[in-house]
């Protein structure tokens, strides 16, 4: 067996793999008709994908200091994208002695026609002596 007869099939295999991965990746299409029906439900003018990321960092580092943070994220109503992703993350730090740190993050978003992902993560720390740290996170997907 010559070298070329071995190399060319291998190269052809490597060339074919990405195309195969594109066809098999993503969501499994067990019901293509139903899937297409859902895609057709996408209203004109609405986005295919909508991602909302709300991140807040609130820090009270001085002695007897106060830090307050309020974040609100709302997506426009009436439009449902195919894929909806909503991320809420907050870090609230009361570092100084006698400090007070308050953080509130709220996010409201639509549900996707095909897929919806809601991700929430919070970190709350009262490290200073007599410090206070209060954190409230709300991540809501429309029903």
């Amino acid at each position, binding site marked *: 067996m010559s070298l070329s007869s071995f190399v060319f099939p291998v190269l052809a295999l490597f060339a074919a793999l990405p195309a195969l991965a594109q066809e098999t990746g993503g*969501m*499994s299409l*067990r*019901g293509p008709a*139903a*899937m297409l*029906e*859902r895609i057709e*439900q996408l209203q004109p003018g609405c986005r295919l994908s909508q991602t909302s990321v709300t991140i807040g960092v609130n820090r009270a580092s001085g002695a007897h200091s106060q830090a307050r943070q309020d974040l609100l994220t709302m997506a426009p109503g009436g439009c449902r994208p*195919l*894929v909806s992703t909503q991320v*809420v993350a907050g870090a*609230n730090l*009361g570092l100084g*002695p006698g400090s007070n740190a308050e953080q509130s993050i709220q996010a409201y978003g639509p*549900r*996707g*026609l*095909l*897929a*919806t*992902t*809601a*991700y*929430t*993560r*919070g*970190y*709350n*720390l*009262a*490290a*200073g*002596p*007599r*410090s*206070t*740290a*209060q*954190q*409230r*996170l*709300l*991540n*809501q*997907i429309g*029903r």
Partner: protein
Amino acid sequence: MRNILFTGIAALSLLSLAPLAPAMAGSIDTGGLSVTHGGGNANTARGSFSTAGQGTTTIGGAAYGHGRALTYGGGNQNLASGYLSNAQQDTTTIGGTAFGRGRATTFGGGNRNVASGYLSNAQQDTTTVGGTAFGRGRATTFGGGNRNLASGYLSDAQQSVTTLGGQAYGRGQSLVSGGYNSNRATGHFSQADQQVLTVGGATHGRELVSGGRNRNAATGFGSSASQSVTTLSGQ
């Protein structure tokens, strides 16, 4: 315990509304994948006389048409390590209804609550609601794997974990696990109180329930440890 029952009843009332969702949403109205992640939070009161309070609420969706609903509300950490510190953590995660051969997976466990400071107090309350699968679905619910530790002198650690999930209708499978919890009071005159409630079940098909392998120990001088683990299934 009253708090646990209240949150349980409130969450069950939400679950009872789940069958109404298709009628409200239409025939093929929503997507096939719903991921709700509300866990993995950290709350720490490290300074002396410090107070840390954290409340996290995540309300996610439903999946229709060979849907897959993943709800993750566990993996939270609450720590009161300072002198006379107070740490309170409340995490609520609601998600997960899958229709049409769906898979509903709910994870509310893996939480950690520690009161390690002198005269410290740590309170942790985790509620996870998920997991209803219709039409030969599979509902998996895991609410265990929680750790509660009072290691400081005269410290107090209270942990309450409520996980509701696991309804699989129409020859479905329901897997429920609420065990593998640990409750320890190792500090002098410390107190550790742990309450774990895992509710699953309600299937006409195959069912597996596991609530075992829990550990409760009071090893500190004059310490007290109380543990209550309830795993319900099989309706």
